[in-house]
Structures are given as C-alpha cells and as structure tokens.
C-alpha cells in the first residue's frame, strides 16, 4: 500500500522538479534551497560567520574596555545595547562573542567527529566481538550527563578555548560513534554490501566507498544539531565560570554578569540570551532542512478528513440497488492530491458487484490500484487521496459519505478486512485477547469477561491451539501463519457480511497459504459472508474464487466467472498474464512475456491503458477512454478469440 502511494507520488512530481543528474550533495542543496525556513537559517548563519570574521570592524568599542562612568546603563545612542557592571559595551561584547561561540561549535564538533566516526564505523561494520566490547565502552556515556563530563575534563585540563573544545568534543564524540555504528550496522544488512563482497571488494574499499556515502547525510544532520548544542554547552560552562576568562567576551559570561546584576539591570539578560537562542535555532533548523532534503521525509500528521469518503451522491437514489447484491461499487474514482497540487487518478471508474456469500477475486499487479479500491470501499483511504466520484452500496444502502460515527457501525459488522502482514496489522504492544475484544465490545457491547470468552471461541475456530492461554500472548509470539489466523479472527469478530482479504496470504509460505485460504472458504460457508480476495497471484484466484475482476492500471479490464477467466480470457491483458505465469507447463522454450512495464499512475494514456503493450491494439484503442462493456474493457473483445478451450 505505502509502496503504491510513494510510487504514485514520484510520478506526480512535475518533471522539472525531479533531480536531473548531478551529485547527491548538489541535489540535496537544491532541495534545501526550496525550503524557506531552512534557507533563512542558512543565511542567518552565514551572516553570523561574517560578523565573527569582521567583529573588530562591527563592534563600536573594544569589548574589554572598561568605563566606570557608564556602568549598567540601558540601551542608549552611545551604547546601543547598554553596558555591563564594568561599563563595557554590550554590543561589542556580543559581536566578539560570536567568534568564540562559532569557534567552539566548529572545533568541538570537529573533535567529536574525528574521534567518533572512525570508531563507530569500525564497530558497526566489523560487528562481532569488536562491537560487543566497543559498545559496552560506549555505554559509559549512558551513565554520564554531558555537562558532568565537561566538568571533569576541565578539572583535568584547566580552562581555555582549546580545553573547552576538547571538553565539549569529548561529550559529543560518543554520540557520533554510536550514530555511525548504528548506520553502519544497518547498512551492513543491506544486500548491496553482500554484492560488493561477492565482487571481491576489500574492506576499506567497502567501508569508505560504499558505507560512508550513506553516512554523510545523517552525519551532517547530526553535526548541525551538535553545533547548536555546543553553543549551549559553551554558554552554560562560561556562565558557571568554567569557560574562558571572565575578561573574554563570551555569551555565557555575559549571562553570568546578567544573573548577578539582575536586580539592577534586567536588560543585560536579553542580548546574549537571544543571541544564543537564535544561533541554536538556526543550527537546528538547518539540520531539519537537510534531514528533510535528504529524503528522510518525516511523516506528517494525517488529516482525518481525508479518510472519509466523498459526499453523498444523488445518483444512488436514482439507480436502484440490485436486489441480490451485497456490495455494489459504482463508478469509483480515487485520486491522489499531491502536495504540489494537481490530481493523479489511482483508481478510475471502477464498478463491481459482489453477491451474498460470493468469493470474488480482485486480481492485479502492483500499482493496479486494487488495494486502493479496497480502502475506498472501507472508507480508509490513505492521506492525500480521496474518493473523487462514485458510490459504494452495502445491502442497498449507500455507505460513501457516511459520518465517522455511521461508518463505525458498518465497519467490522458490515465489511471487515484482513491485511497482508499480520505482524504490522496487529498492535505489537497489546495482547491479542485485548485486541480481539475491541470489536466485540464496540459492536455487541459485551462485558470484558464475555468478550474474552468469545475471543477464545473465535481463536479456536480459526485454528489456534490452546486459545484461552494464548489470549494473553502478544503478536510477536505467533508465527506468521498463526498471526494471520488471529487477524482473521479479529476481522470475523463482529460477524461481517463481507470480508476483504487484501493480499492476506501473499506473505505466507505455500503450505500455510493454502491452509489459510481453505480456512477462509470454510468460514465463508459458516458465517455466510462474502469474500473479496485481493491478490496478484493467479493461483490463489484459481483455487479460491467464484468470480474474478482483473485490474490493470487503475481500471477493471475484465470481470468473469473464474473458469471462464482461465479458459476464455476476453481481455488481452488477462490472456497475456495467464500466458506469462511461470507455473505453466514445462517448456524448453521461452515464457511468453508482456513487453514493457505497468505504467505508473499519472502516466496513464487517455485511451486503453494496456494499448502500448497489447499485441492487438489498433488506432481506435488509443483515441478515447474505453468503457467497460459487457464486463470487458476492450474495443476488440468481440472479434478476438484469446483463450484456447481444451
């Protein structure tokens, strides 16, 4: 699901915005530039740097020059930011303070990186005993507050600029080592490093050419944060009198004076305080900007409104519901609305009917929009997507456009769903008994005890042994197949009339898959519910479904009885898919293939979506949208004989 969304997002980005060659750093910089806040922070830091370099020119007075005739004066024309207790000019001390702040920031982070990064790289990449021992040593930093380490280092080395850099650098180097180690460990698992080893590359080559480039992003982000922190720590140490000599113009030292003189001149606290806040803020914002630009796209909170369906349509009232239909999907179109603007269709004009107790397959490759359709039916569309048009009727009642409260009654009781990966579809920190009880309590108002009893019955029904004791287990204590049974029990709890199984067996081993599919069919009979089986697997369709809809690039191209689908496919895509299935008979020749690939959402042609890969396409195919006529979306369905009936 998320893969589909990210794919379509990429497609939705206008071509001009796509990175076009150039180094990674240049691309990242390009993306930083497009973030006004981060850009402002960069500009601020550059100004700060310039001010530090030209401090003697900018400062109106010598920062150390004392003047007892104007002590603790507030802002005036002579002293724009006033003077301190020795009559020194605050503005001048502030400007000269930038030098020390930036020196310490760059110096300490430099020290920390020079020590920390190689250590982390070594531990993370080497692993094994190196890592176990090294990590233990790094754990010391878990026990020591950074400032305390700073105290100890200064106690040993004494005060001074270099000492300050070393003290602060020492505080940070452990963090760099750990972060580097974590990234290196994560990269070590990546297959491309296996490939590098298989190619015979040497360890240093792998470390510096393969692993390190992936580290630069996180390192730069971290370095920017620590430069900000270094300014804070320097201020704290100077404030305590452990930094530079009181004579030197440091922001922390200025604050120390402000604290002593707070009763007499409160203004003293503000210039250095704001200077610290702004610089730290700037470093943090730059760090955030780089982090975002490097594609560590932090998830944004999703608007709940986006999850609800479209407005009620008048159409539903006009066209009466089919009497035998349990679920009717009419002309559903789902669109993605990317942040940059525009609309990208993900599902286009899909109509589908499911009868009571029927098992209907929805077959499609990734990117066909099959899962998105299921989510539209459930009113569970992901953020930034919306139901642009169409209606969904359950038992003749329109469920699109229902309020959240009204939908709640439909979900679980009317329609329920089982997702692909049971391990993420169940909350990892709640017992399964608790999770199974939720729908029972929500729909039937059961007491805790009654819900628990029923939950155990459900577990037994789906084939979990010792259900009573397993109620108190957590999802990770189940195997994949068993966890999927639990997820099925959860979906069954409120006895739905329609169960949507969204690739529910795709992640399972074949033996487990067949067991779970068989279980679904048994439950269909027992609970008299219909099943919408979403899958990419022809075999699953063949084994399980009564009827099947085939989706390609957002559209249903064919709906057919399952036997007819396999014997007499009517759409060229269906026929090609059947032919390409590698599970066919053993032939020494080549497998029939479909040339090219599935077009991404946003790149669909206006005519037949399959035309450019189709062996039978004609001129008329690409001109206009092709309607679904007689359950097949092909202009030539009447004159093509695709299937070979044996």
């Amino acid at each position, binding site marked *: 699901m998320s893969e589909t969304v990210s794919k379509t997002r990429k497609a939705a980005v206008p071509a001009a915005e796509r990175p076009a060659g150039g180094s990674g750093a240049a691309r990242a910089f390009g993306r930083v530039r497009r973030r006004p806040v981060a850009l402002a922070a960069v500009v601020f830091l550059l100004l700060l740097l310039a001010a530090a370099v030209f401090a003697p020119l900018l400062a109106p007075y010598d920062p150390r020059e004392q003047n007892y005739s104007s002590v603790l004066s507030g802002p005036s024309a002579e002293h724009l930011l006033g003077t301190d207790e020795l009559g020194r000019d605050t503005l001048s001390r502030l400007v000269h303070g930038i030098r020390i702040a930036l020196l310490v920031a760059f110096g300490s982070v430099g020290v920390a990186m020079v020590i920390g990064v190689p250590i982390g790289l070594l531990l993370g990449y080497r692993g094994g005993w190196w890592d176990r021992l090294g990590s233990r040593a790094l754990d010391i930093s878990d026990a020591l507050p950074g400032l305390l380490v700073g105290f100890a280092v200064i106690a040993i080395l004494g005060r001074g600029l270099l000492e300050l850099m070393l003290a602060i650098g020492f505080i940070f180097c452990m963090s760099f080592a750990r972060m580097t180690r974590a990234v290196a460990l994560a990269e070590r698992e990546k297959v491309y490093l296996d490939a590098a080893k298989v190619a015979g590359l040497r360890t240093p080559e792998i470390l510096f050419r393969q692993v390190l480039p992936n580290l630069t992003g996180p390192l730069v982000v971290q370095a920017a944060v620590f430069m900000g922190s270094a300014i804070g720590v320097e201020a704290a140490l100077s404030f305590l009198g452990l930094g530079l000599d009181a004579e030197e113009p440091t922001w922390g030292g200025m604050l120390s004076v402000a604290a002593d003189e707070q009763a007499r001149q409160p203004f003293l606290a503000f210039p250095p305080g704001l200077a610290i806040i702004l610089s730290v803020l700037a470093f943090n914002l730059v760090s955030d900007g780089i982090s975002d630009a490097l594609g560590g796209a932090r998830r944004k909170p999703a608007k709940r409104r986006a999850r609800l369906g479209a407005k009620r349509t008048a159409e539903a009232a006009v066209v009466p519901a089919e009497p035998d239909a349990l679920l009717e999907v009419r002309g559903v179109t789902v669109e993605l609305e990317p942040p940059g603007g525009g609309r990208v269709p993900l599902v286009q004009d899909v109509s589908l009917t499911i009868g009571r107790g029927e098992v209907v397959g929805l077959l499609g490759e990734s990117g066909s929009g099959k899962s998105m359709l299921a989510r539209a039916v459930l009113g569970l569309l992901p953020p930034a997507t919306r139901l642009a048009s169409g209606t969904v009727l359950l038992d003749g009642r329109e469920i699109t456009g229902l309020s959240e409260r009204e939908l709640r009654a439909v979900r679980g009781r009317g329609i329920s769903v089982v997702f692909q990966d049971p391990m993420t579809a169940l909350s990892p920190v709640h017992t399964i008994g608790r999770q199974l009880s939720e729908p029972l309590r929500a729909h039937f108002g059961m007491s805790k005890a009654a819900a628990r009893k029923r939950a155990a019955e459900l577990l037994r029904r789906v084939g979990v042994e010792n259900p009573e004791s397993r109620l108190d287990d957590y999802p990770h204590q189940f195997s994949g197949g068993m966890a999927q049974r639990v997820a099925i029990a959860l979906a069954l709890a409120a006895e739905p009339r329609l169960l949507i199984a969204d690739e529910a067996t795709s992640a399972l081993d074949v033996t487990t898959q067949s067991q779970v599919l068989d279980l679904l069919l048994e439950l269909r009979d027992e609970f008299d519910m219909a099943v919408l089986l979403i899958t990419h697997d022809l075999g699953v369709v063949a084994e399980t479904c009564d009827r099947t809809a085939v989706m390609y690039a957002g559209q249903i191209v064919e709906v057919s009885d399952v036997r007819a689908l396999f014997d007499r496919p009517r759409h060229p895509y269906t026929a090609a898919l059947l032919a390409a299935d590698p599970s066919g008979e053993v032939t020494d020749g*080549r*497998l029939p293939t479909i040339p090219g690939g599935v077009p991404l959402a946003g790149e669909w042609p206006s005519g037949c979506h399959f035309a450019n890969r189709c062996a039978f396409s004609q001129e008329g195919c690409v001109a206009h949208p092709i309607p679904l006529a007689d359950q097949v979306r092909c202009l030539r369905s009447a004159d093509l004989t695709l*299937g*070979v009936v044996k």
Partner: protein
Amino acid sequence: MSVSQERLLSVRDLTVTYESGRAMQWRRSPVKAIDGVSFDVRPGETLGLVGESGSGKSTIGRSILRLADVSGGTIDFDGLDVTALGRRTPLSYRRAVQAVFQDPASSLNPRHVVSTAVTTPLRRHGVGDAAAREEAAAAAFERVGLSRAHLSRLPSELSGGQRQRVAIARALALEPRLIVCDEAVSALDVSTQSQIINLLADLQESTGMSYLFVTHDLRIVRHISHRVAVMHAGRLVELAPVEQLFDSPRHPYTRSLLAASPATHPTGRERRRSHRANYRPNHHGPEIVRGEEGCPFRNRCASVMEVCRTKTPPLRELADGGRVACHLYGEEGRTVEGGPHRGKGRGKGGGRGSTGEG
C-alpha cells in the same frame, strides 16, 4: 543448452550453525541452520533449491558466496575447496561465482549511479581502464535489455524489474561460471518475472554458466531448473530432475508442498481442497528441535511410521537416480507407491489461454 555430467560445484555434508539468541537470553545456543547437505551443480545446469522460510535454502547460497561461516563439510568449486580458504577469498573465485539477490530495492547502493554497480567490480578485478569499464558496463546493460540512458540513473529512478536487470548485469560483467540467484525474481510482478526468467535462460544459453536458483516458489523453479533440490528444516529431503520431482514426488514433504502450491487452473480445486483437508495432520505436535534425532517432518507427515521418531532418515539414492531422505524408501521402511498425490488439474497444458497470434 547442454548439461554435462561433470561437476562444477560439489557441496558435501555442509553444516552451518548460528548462535540463536534474542536480545535478552542468558545463554546463546548454536542452532544448525544447515545440517549435512550434499549436492552437485553441473556446468551449464540450473539447480533449483526450494524450501519454505527458515528451511536454510538461502544460507546454502550464502555459504557458497562466503557470506556465511561454514562449520562443517566442504564446498568444492572446480577443484578449489572453498571451505579450506582463509579469511581472504581468491579474486579468481570471486570472479567465477556471482550472485543476484532478491530485494531490488536494497541490492544497489542508493547513493551511486547504477553503472558503478558494474564498473566497481571490474576495477577491483583489474579489467581495462576507466573508459573500457564504462564501455563494458554499457555492453552488459545492453545484454540485459537496458539502454545506455539507464547507466547514469540512480537506483531510485528505476523500476523493480530494471533494478533486477542491473543486478544481473553486475553479475554478468565478471563472466562468472556460477550465479547464485537468491529469490532473484520473487519480488517482481508476474509479467516482469517472466521477462527476467527468459533473460536468465537466454544468458545461460549463450554463456554456458550454471545457476543455483534459490526460491520458495515451486512454480518458478519448475520452469527454470534442470534439477530441483528440496530443503526442509536445514536438511535436503529430495533431489530429482525437474520432471520427475513434479510428476512423481517422493518425499511426503515435497508432496505436501506441491499439494499446497496453487494450481494454474480452477479445475479440480474442490478435490484438491478435500484432499488437503484429509491430508492435513490434525495435531500439529510440538515444535521439533533442530538437530534432534528423528525425521524433522514427522509431526506433519501423513505417512509417519515408528522409525521416523527415532532415526533421522539419510539421503539415499534410488534406482532411477533420484535422491530422497525418507524411511518410506529405505531398508527399514517399505517403498510405497501412490500415497497422497496432488490433484490432476495442474501441469501439462491445463487448458490455459495463450496470447497466440489470434
């Protein structure tokens, strides 16, 4: 393509153990991921290695690639005992044995343009100068059906199928004699899958290299392999030519795998279902500890006998050349015909459609 009877790769009694250990366990105990596995790969041959998750099939591939530490047995590649090598692996071996991995998303360095995936190994192996290597990369790309325009793309700018083609080009450029394909097409869509399978077959045809094709998907193995080895719980339970394995599976585990594998046509599915229902053991039984004496499949086996609980069946060669590790086919057991079979609806010519020239 011709498959000779000599051996390119001989694996004998391969054993791989790893330390089990969750984050919070007092003691780590070694677990056998691979327990005494033996097989050969012949020049020009594709050996399919199938098994469910946790069967150890990928570990075998990884130990051949020297990515997993071997604790026992030998891997002989064209006269070179790979297990006897020290920490360093001779470049000649690295060149001769290459790999294509499953995950097209992580098998390429996200920060490098994809041509470096081909040129970096070439540089390491001292092939030509930079320009020659770029040219070699372009040639390799062409062979796997990619264009020059793809050379300077980043992995994120390619589709899954294209990334897998790059991975194949990377392996191919070194002109290996054996490629370990670890679930190389499993993550791809059906239509892309068949393209890649054809590509691999074509390349084998033109180069005569061998494949060790590791996968969980019996359907793919059926199409691409000459012989198939079936793994269960770290052991090899059956090894047979592909036709023989699919038409008359011997080991009850192989049979259950085939019975569970979805057919290509709905015909006969009710029978298959009821058959599975009968065949499915009612009692799952306790989890069998790896390395424990007895057949590891006994608790799920419909044909279980007394001897299965006490003795681990060795891999025996049968008269027709097939190999099976099951007491049904040994001195202690009876050689039974029949037994549970998969349904008939699958297999040859099951009335499927074809794109034809209709």
